[in-house]
């Protein structure tokens, strides 16, 4: 496999404090570091009692936050802050599918699950992935949202996702992993669980499956065109032809213009396997990535294999992997790290972070070589995003 090189615009490492934005089943929290990343301060909760699937800072202005919120009783919405979380206002028109014609059954958004800022050249543009699987776009910083008709009304949408399912996230079908090519705002990738990876080269007007080489062991068809269970796709911002995918059936890499994913998870230890939810990329080295394996055997416990949590890092694009468990529980650690719950900062060495279903946040200031718990006793964690640095 070719070694990907970052382009000429490789940014200098960041050097300031880091803020983590943590979405949980019962609200959102901020965790702020000192410059050394040794001391961490927990603040919040915001939206106490509400389900927060994703809380994302706009890197284009460094102060606008969008937060995907729903309460157990109430419908899904998006809140936005333009002052780094001091105050919040609800979207005037949250993501919603069109009203169906009389006699027809329409779709209703159950959760806003994933938020992605738009291209750097399009300030105010955002994408949202929702459950049931749908894609929405805002042109005004998240105040109003419109469906991306090319996907939501695509006649192939229902076949792609295997028909409508009843459960939403965290236990059901959703659209996530919205990646915008930094060279071209019209070039988009999305992931659907289940449905697969899809690509658009015309700003979302049309889509095509991009799943060759990806296993779908749960389907009766060999090498299906779609129907795969994508857990997370990340495009490297400095080498945008390099994509990594953590799938329900393995870890993959795709170097465009190739069409066939390569199963780089085959190099993982057989006793650990290559199943997990998140996949995290090094901000400056397209060949370095982290995963957090989970048990995908028998009834799919989805916890750390053997109760021994560990991240695995590859420094060569997935050719080889190294276990990183120093500081983590040596045994009886039975948590799950969800697809939005692991991330990296922009420092040197890179800080790597993950949040657990048991409400802990862990960090490593040395690229995974040693882990430290920086928050405990939070609600079940759905997402962790890092900013600043």
């Amino acid at each position, binding site marked *: 496999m070719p070694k990907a090189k970052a382009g000429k615009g490789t940014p200098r490492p960041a050097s300031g404090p880091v803020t983590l934005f943590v979405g949980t089943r019962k609200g959102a929290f901020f965790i702020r570091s000192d410059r050394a990343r040794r001391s961490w301060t927990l603040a919040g909760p915001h939206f106490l009692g509400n389900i927060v699937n994703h809380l994302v800072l706009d890197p284009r202005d460094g102060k606008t936050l969008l937060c995907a919120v729903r*309460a*157990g*009783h*109430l*419908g899904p*919405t998006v809140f936005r802050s333009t002052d780094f979380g001091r105050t919040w206002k*609800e979207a*005037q028109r*949250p993501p*919603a*599918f*069109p*009203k*169906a014609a009389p006699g027809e*059954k*329409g*779709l*209703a*958004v159950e959760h806003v699950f994933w938020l992605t800022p738009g291209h750097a050249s399009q300030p105010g543009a955002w994408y949202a992935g929702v459950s049931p699987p749908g894609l929405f776009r805002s042109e005004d910083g998240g105040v109003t949202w419109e469906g991306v008709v090319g996907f939501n009304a695509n006649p192939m949408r229902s076949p792609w996702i295997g028909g409508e399912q009843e459960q939403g996230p965290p236990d059901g079908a959703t659209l996530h992993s919205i990646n915008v090519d930094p060279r071209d705002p019209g070039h988009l990738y999305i992931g659907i669980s289940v449905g697969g990876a899809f690509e658009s080269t015309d700003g979302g007007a049309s889509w095509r499956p991009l799943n060759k080489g990806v296993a779908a062991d749960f389907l009766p068809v060999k090498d299906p065109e779609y129907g795969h269970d994508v857990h997370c796709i990340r495009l490297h911002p400095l080498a945008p032809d390099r994509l990594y995918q953590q799938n329900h059936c393995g870890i993959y890499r795709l170097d465009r213009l190739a069409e066939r994913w390569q199963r780089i998870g085959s190099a993982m230890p057989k006793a650990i396997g290559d199943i997990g939810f998140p996949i995290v990329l090094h901000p400056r080295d397209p060949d370095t990535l982290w995963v957090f394996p989970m048990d995908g055997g028998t009834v799919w416990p989805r916890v750390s294999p053997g109760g021994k949590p560990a991240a695995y890092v590859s420094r060569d694009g997935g050719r080889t992997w190294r276990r990183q468990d120093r500081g983590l529980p040596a045994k009886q650690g039975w948590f799950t790290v969800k697809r939005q719950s692991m991330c990296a900062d922009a420092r040197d060495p890179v800080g790597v972070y993950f949040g657990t279903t048991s409400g802990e946040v862990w960090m490593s200031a040395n690229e995974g070589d040693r882990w430290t718990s920086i928050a405990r006793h939070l609600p079940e964690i759905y997402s962790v995003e890092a900013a600043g640095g």
Partner: protein
Amino acid sequence: MNVLIPSQLRDYTGGRAHVEARGGTLAELLADLERRHPGIRFRMIDEQDAIRRHIKIFVNQQPTRDLGTALAANDEVVIVGALSGG
């Protein structure tokens, strides 16, 4: 008429449990509530005009899930958030 707002929705009514709204049907009442308290309707009613699963609406103590339910000026409308589990 008087509408009882559940605690889950009082962010939209400035904390008030009882608010006034008008309408000849439940749909019209909800539209009036939305005019007076923007954003409140979508948290209760989805884009297909279905009352959300964990919202219950009572008109004169009778449950209804029909937005076409007729209302009179003195009717009492109670909105309840109903969710089991943790």
